[in-house]
């Protein structure tokens, strides 16, 4: 079909990375794009099609004012994928987010170990962002990268074991999974949804006699029961 089967109802890890790359991040530029007031006076500011000395950033999916006003070594906020391109060209250094420090990660690990019934509050993109920054911006961290890596790995393993424990509560009604990150959800999605769908079908098949009247009123269509029977 028009969409490959493995992308059916879930995302590929690359697409998850794509989503994360749309988030803003702070950087230290190493180039200056802010134009002098004097230079600006010579041309009409709003006529962007006429040629100028320095090329202007004109982007259609994000706010480009911050990119046109970069001053070297003055921190600014840009979208992650732009930051990665700049970083690749050695035109900026990326400021790691506050949670990506040894101290903060240690606190999170502590929290995970003391609260066995819940996940600590990590940003929704922590795993992907950490991976990206370790690979592409390893020289920008204040803490040594190998320590950060091992702590992120620890955190991931603790959370994974909690997920495994949580899987015994799969049921036919619902689940609540606060603070689970987008990559963790994505790797669990096919399994959780598959199992819960089957549980629901079994439940529905067992109770179909009594639930039939509600069914017709709610007009949900009874294809579910047909599928359960197939």
């Amino acid at each position, binding site marked *: *079909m*028009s*969409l490959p089967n493995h*992308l*059916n*109802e*879930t*995302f590929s890890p690359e*697409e998850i990375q*794509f*989503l994360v790359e*749309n988030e803003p991040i702070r950087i230290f530029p190493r*180039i200056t794009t802010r134009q002098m007031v004097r230079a600006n006076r010579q041309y009409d500011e*709003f006529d*962007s*099609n006429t*040629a100028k000395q*320095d*090329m202007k950033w*004109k*982007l*259609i*999916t*994000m*706010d*480009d*004012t911050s*990119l046109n006003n970069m001053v070297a070594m003055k921190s600014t906020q840009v979208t992650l*994928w*732009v930051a990665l*391109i700049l970083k690749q060209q050695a*035109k900026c250094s990326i400021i790691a987010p506050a949670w990506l420090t040894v101290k903060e990660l240690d606190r999170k690990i502590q929290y995970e170990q003391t609260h066995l019934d819940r996940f600590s509050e990590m940003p929704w993109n922590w795993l992907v962002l950490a991976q990206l920054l370790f690979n592409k911006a390893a020289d920008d961290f204040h803490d040594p990268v190998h320590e950060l890596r091992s702590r992120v790995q620890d955190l991931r393993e603790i959370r994974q074991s909690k997920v495994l424990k949580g899987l015994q509560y799969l049921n*036919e*009604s*619902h*689940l*609540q*999974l*606060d603070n*689970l990150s*987008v990559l963790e*959800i994505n790797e669990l*999605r096919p399994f*959780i*949804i598959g199992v*819960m*769908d089957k549980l*629901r079908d079994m*439940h*529905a098949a067992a*109770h179909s006699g009594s*639930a039939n009247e*509600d069914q017709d009123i709610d007009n*949900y*269509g009874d*294809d*579910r029961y*047909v*599928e359960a029977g*197939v």
Partner: protein
Amino acid sequence: MDIDDILASLDHDTTAVESLRSDADNYNGSSTLLYSDLTYNDSQTKDKQNPNTISNSTATTSATITTSAQDYNNLIELWRNERCSPELLPYPTKLLDRILPRLQQQMEYIESLSMGFISEYSQSSKLPLLCMEAELERLKFVIRSFLRCRLKKIDKYNFYLQSIIASSDTDSANLLSKQESIYLNKHSQILLKLFNNSILKHMPVDLQAIQDTEGSISMVDEPKWDQFVFIYVKDLSTQSFMVTIPQLNEEVELSPGSIYVMRYSVIRDLLMQGKIQLI
């Protein structure tokens, strides 16, 4: 003394630019616009007519910048919803009508830039061009993936969609784009021709219908309304929602900012209002 309200009102009407900005931020918060994105244009024209706002050129440009970023975020969200939901969601006509011309314009702009590139600019400032091209590719990828996902669903729910459109509810009016409805018609014609010529014409007359819902198994594939989906309750402004699962007679409280695994039929209305997001 609590002066937050006074400070907020002072902040609000310092300049026209600010008020437009904050209005644009309000779109962000107002969640109704997702599937009926009329609100955008309405409030923008309202702003222009409003005598209090001095709409000079800076104000309008800053507003369009905010909305183009906002449009992109909306598109991403719609893409994620479409990928995860079991049914075909309404086609965001207005949103794509804004994004596609912008895409075209940007392509022409890059073209004209790279034509004049050698003479006008020094070699050192290639960077903006590189990023603009990368951005274009990213945007095109999202749109492409979004449309392909919709085509897949149109293939799958072929007969079901036709029956909905034939029944001509108000819902089905904005379900498909023009091209998609052409695709639906043509594709099902071709499919029918193939089946008719190869198999169906050899069958007894009362078994020749391809959309038979009377037999032992319904031949019209409907979306699995009760499929489980991961949802994120994104409307942080309000208190939690109560939903009931009719099959189990069970009430569930959805608190803002949390993630649930839920049946699609239960949360469909909240999704259409843009209060939750599929992840």
